[in-house]
């Protein structure tokens, strides 16, 4: 009979070995799925994992990978701080929308001012917008003890309605013949989140994501606040004895993740997306939650997990258009990948022992 035995410490080997193992298992199971759908499994898997990185058009896809991974990583880094401390911000999607709205709002309000201050102002506004939206569940939690999961989630729907109202109303492009959607910020150089080096995909958001990863790493390993966050998550009672003020921690964690999500939204709307439109948000805020856990709430892990998610998105799109795989099959495939990644985690934390049934 199989038996699980908890390891005193997570296994170092398995910590690094489990992700590749999960990817491998997913390739096998996914290959079976694709074969069942009548496609060549080897080609499908290669299209998803290999071609974007090393295929004929890798020069185009590699930068795209950065563009796709950036919002995921930015948001997930912020979320991971809260998740470690037991503060559950599920509403990053809403904070992402608000950051985009406030960031783009400043840019649109200053149009057509040609000045170097426009873009920095937009960055500040974007971070503030996301921060303020996250402060609603934070303050309600601290003041009234309301559940932050629910409030932050509800605020996502409110933010979506606000986005539609803005795209159709105040932010609508006055030269757009009455169609919804704002001006295109890419055509407004002062507000455009352009690539720092052309052709690399490196826009300012990528830089921000790199900074966030490093800052989070330093915070968690070197700073007293990082210690408090970890303590509050692992041993809430001990944390209180050692002088951690839970209210302050809630404000800091939700505020930080909100500001980072807001930044992500702002960089997206001013760069890759270009404009405020009804369907601007595509679920990065929710996907980032998965990314945070896949990365084991560790900054470096999150960066890798974000890139892996981005790869399955981009490779999955390629598989759709070149092999005619339905989008649903790709979604299913991503779901499987996550399942296996989560399941093999078992090996990191537990030892599997075979034992004979004890005689009673």
């Amino acid at each position, binding site marked *: 009979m199989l038996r699980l035995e908890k390891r005193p410490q997570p296994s170092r080997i398995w910590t690094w070995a489990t992700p590749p193992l999960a990817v491998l298992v997913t390739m096998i199971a996914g290959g079976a799925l694709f074969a069942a759908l009548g496609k060549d499994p080897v080609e499908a898997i290669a299209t998803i994992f290999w071609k974007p990185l090393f295929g004929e*058009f890798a*020069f*185009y896809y590699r*930068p*795209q990978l950065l*563009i*796709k991974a950036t919002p995921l990583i930015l948001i997930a880094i912020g979320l991971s701080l809260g998740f470690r401390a037991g503060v559950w911000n599920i509403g990053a999607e809403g904070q992402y929308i608000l950051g985009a709205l406030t960031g783009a709002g400043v840019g649109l309000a200053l149009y057509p001012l040609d000045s170097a201050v426009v873009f920095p102002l937009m960055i500040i506004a974007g971070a503030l917008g996301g921060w303020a939206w996250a402060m609603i569940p934070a303050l309600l939690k601290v003041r009234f003890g309301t559940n932050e999961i629910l409030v932050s989630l509800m605020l996502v729907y409110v933010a979506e*309605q606000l986005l*539609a109202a803005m795209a*159709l*109303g105040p932010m609508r492009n006055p030269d757009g*013949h*009455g*169609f*919804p*959607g704002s001006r*295109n910020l*890419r055509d407004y150089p002062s507000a455009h989140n352009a690539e720092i080096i*052309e*052709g690399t995909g490196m826009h300012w958001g990528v830089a921000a994501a790199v900074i966030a990863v490093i800052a989070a790493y330093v915070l968690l390993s070197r700073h007293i606040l990082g210690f408090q966050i970890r303590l509050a998550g692992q041993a809430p009672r001990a944390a209180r004895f050692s002088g951690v003020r839970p209210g302050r921690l809630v404000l800091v964690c939700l505020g930080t993740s909100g500001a980072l999500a807001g930044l992500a939204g702002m960089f*997206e709307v001013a*760069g*890759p*997306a*270009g*404009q405020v*439109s*009804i*369907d*601007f948000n*595509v679920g990065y805020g929710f996907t980032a939650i998965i990314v945070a856990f896949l990365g084991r709430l560790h900054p470096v892990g999150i960066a890798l997990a974000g890139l892996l998610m981005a790869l399955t998105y*981009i490779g999955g*799109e*390629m598989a*759709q*258009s*070149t092999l*005619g795989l*339905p*989008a*649903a099959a790709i979604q299913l495939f991503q779901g499987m990948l996550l399942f296996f990644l989560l399941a093999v985690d078992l090996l990191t934390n537990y030892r599997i022992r075979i034992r004979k049934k004890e005689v009673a």
Partner: protein
Amino acid sequence: MTLTRLLTSAALALGLATGATAQDKTKVGFIYVGPIGDGGWTYEHDKGRLAVEEHFGDAVETVYQESVPEGADAARAITQMALQGADLIFTTSFGFMEPTLEVAKKFPNVKFEHATGYKTLPNVSTYSARFYEGRAVQGHIAGEMTESNTIGYIASYPIPEVIRGINSAYLHAKKVNPDVEFKIIWAYTWFDPAKEADAAQALIEQGADVILQHTDSTAPQAAAEKAGDVITFGQASDMAEYAPFPRVSSIIDNWAPYYIDRTQAVIDGTWESQQVWHGIDEGMVKIGEITDAVPADVKADALALKETMAAGEYHPFTGPINRQDGSAWLAEGEIADDGTLLGMDFYVEGISGQIPN
């Protein structure tokens, strides 16, 4: 080398490559905003794609990508198709306008067709359908059929396309029934079956016995069927499963003729950038079968109305028409210009309520 140049040279290389094999296959790509199983907007575009495949057989290969979000993801999806050697790419949602233009600039040899937009380039055309012609027929039938003189309208978002439809339906209902009143619900969604069902229910409870919809699900049809004495019209697709009652007719998006036409133009080398707005005449807007639930004379009148529009003898927006506030818009006999129609952001006289914003 900059990215633009890289992409262009890649495109050129591919252009040469496809040039060599052009005899056997032309590649046509489709970018969809929803899943092909949405039963409405994207479903109909995909039927157009299948019609292209059937028409050209082995001469043409089609590829598609569904559920493409607007914005950065769209640009990537379109680029991907261009890189893989598509000769012609249809981008089938308004929100793909900017990404289409952006990619088109990098691939001058690939032809692009953007649905419902207004910006063109030498290698980008736009195409759209005059659905308001279909709305005129609907309005006519609705005005004749209503007994409560109350017509419910489930609108999606307050954009010109939707407002145009409301105005056209109202004008033609009013023409045959001066007492008619429109109750309009803005659902703020293109697709949320449960909400559409609730909206239809609310309208029926407010006394509407005709429901018009500008959202894509059949939920309002089912609500009407349950109510028993309410009629509806299919939207985007025929929704024939609810015929002959409550669905008495429908407006069908019929993209196949246009897609076949443009693919042929690419094969012949005669493709040129253009802006088209096709209606009943060209077959882009089809009126689904009017069922026997509609009295024969009403049906005959409705078909006659359709014929005059198809023949170009009648335009649904022919003066005199006033704006909602009573100010004059079109003088007697004056016909609305396409510019005003494309950007329509006002109700015509007689409709109560305000356009949200």
